[in-house]
């Protein structure tokens, strides 16, 4: 019950945030970015945290969703919401197809193959000028079309969309983790051979979660480029995929709140530390090392430990 009350209070605070921070659009901008980074991280958390699949090409699937939607909206004049759906489905389908290949490998071989596919997809985004507009980026991506008179142009309005999308991703994560499907994923992470010996079709389950994780990344990708009004290959590069892994691990792999905490630290903190100019990345690096040293289960693990001590 206290957890539900805390969640309700948090949601209320997030909902009221635009009113509180009315004169601080920059803070709102950072919070939107936190939501947009947290969404792909949720997809990766399902793969890495719950199933034990460390993908180093995750953000490339966000790119598949983003560019699919961009082409459909700008070149094919499709409405935002249908393009969003198409982007999510395209990312999920790419995840299923590429996952079916990558998942034939295990451990570090799997990581290397996902990295290779990530680089390939990045190459396509960067070099296929006729479709993706290449390294210069894909400009002119519209903000979402109004819904029932509610427009998404103004920053606070887009904030609510990003918040709703992030909440949806977290709700999907919660449903998966609570389900029998989620239980099998956790079993696969602990001991795949044993799970197979008990009748689990490991390949099927892992491909399904790879596809779902990629589809969630696609959702984040579409919203990201719609927010920035431009799709740039750098947003979906290897560096961004590694950032996504760090967000999940720092936040707490295999915990429901991990991606949110990770995104807050990973996106929010460097922005906050901008005042320290060139020192900010050094400070941030030291903080990451400290988190790994003293909170191996990430910030969510640290929070759970602190909460247990308070209750005791």
């Amino acid at each position, binding site marked *: 019950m206290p957890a539900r009350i805390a969640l309700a209070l948090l949601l209320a605070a997030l909902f009221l945030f635009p009113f509180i921070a009315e004169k601080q659009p920059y803070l709102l901008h950072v919070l939107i970015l936190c939501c947009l980074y947290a969404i792909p991280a949720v997809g990766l958390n399902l793969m890495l945290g719950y199933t034990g699949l460390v993908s180093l090409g995750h953000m490339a699937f966000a790119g598949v969703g983003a560019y699919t939607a961009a082409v459909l909206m700008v070149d094919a004049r499709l409405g935002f919401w249908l393009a969003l759906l198409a982007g999510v489905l395209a990312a999920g389908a790419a995840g299923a197809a590429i996952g079916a290949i990558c998942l034939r490998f295990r451990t570090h071989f799997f990581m290397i193959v996902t990295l290779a596919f990530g680089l390939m997809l990045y190459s396509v985004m960067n070099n296929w000028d006729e479709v993706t507009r290449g390294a210069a980026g894909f400009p002119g991506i519209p903000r979402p079309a109004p819904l029932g008179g509610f427009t998404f142009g103004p920053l606070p309005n887009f904030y609510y969309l990003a918040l709703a999308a992030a909440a949806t991703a977290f709700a999907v994560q919660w449903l998966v983790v609570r389900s029998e499907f989620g*239980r099998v994923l*956790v*079993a696969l992470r*602990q*001991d795949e*051979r*044993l*799970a*197979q*010996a*008990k*009748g*689990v*079709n*490991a390949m099927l389950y892992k491909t399904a979660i790879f596809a779902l994780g990629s589809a969630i990344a696609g959702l984040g990708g579409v919203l990201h480029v719609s927010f920035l009004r431009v799709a740039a290959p750098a947003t979906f590069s290897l560096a961004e995929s590694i950032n996504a892994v760090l967000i999940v691990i720092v936040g707490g792999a295999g915990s429901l709140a991990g991606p949110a905490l990770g995104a807050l630290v990973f996106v929010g903190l460097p922005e906050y530390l901008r005042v320290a100019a060139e020192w900010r990345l050094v400070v941030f690096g030291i903080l990451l090392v400290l988190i790994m040293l003293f909170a191996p289960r990430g910030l969510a693990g640290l929070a759970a430990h602190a909460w247990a001590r308070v209750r005791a």
Partner: protein
Amino acid sequence: MISIRSLRKRYGGVDALSDCDLEIAGPGIYGLIGPNGAGKTTLFDVITGLTEPDSGSVLVEGRDVTGLSPHRLAKLGIARSFQECRVFPEFSCLENLLFGARGTRDEALRLLELVNLHGYRDEPAAELSFGQRRLLEIVATFMLKPRILLLDEPASGVNPALLELLLEFIRRMYDERPCLFLVVEHNMEFVMALAAEIIVMHQGAVLERGTPEAVQASPRVMEAYLG
């Protein structure tokens, strides 16, 4: 019930299975013994789909199941335990028993009680001692209600007090639901007390089979063990 026909499996320059033939007609508790490297675990791995043989076939009740994936073989009623003891460490004892189970929660609780693990039902399996984890692993295989159960060194790492409990438990499970139990074991006292028939493997093939008394008296078996 199970027919192994001319199975061959080679690892590098070593024949783990070398034209291995084995026919087991019906339910019963069978011991599978042999010196280290005789091919016992490889045979289990081939039967359960974890290893693909180079040639030969495995037939279960007349159906060729060679090369089927482990999960499909599990669905066909072939269950196993592992030499290195495998449980889900983060799951509680009860959750371990219920994962993939064909039995009910009440049955799981009864089985935990039979091996004195009832008090640990909600504890993560990682908290148990090695011997208790081994018991849990074996108990969990019975929850799958198998037609063929392969136990790979169930007595390994289990202290004498728990060993007696384990012996009684396996016998009881067989009495309640007779099927084919094939038990790989190096603890001779344990396997001779448990099995009605002993199969001896040596250099990747079946060397001898018979009652525990006959096998213990066999000069060929003596030679295989003592070299």
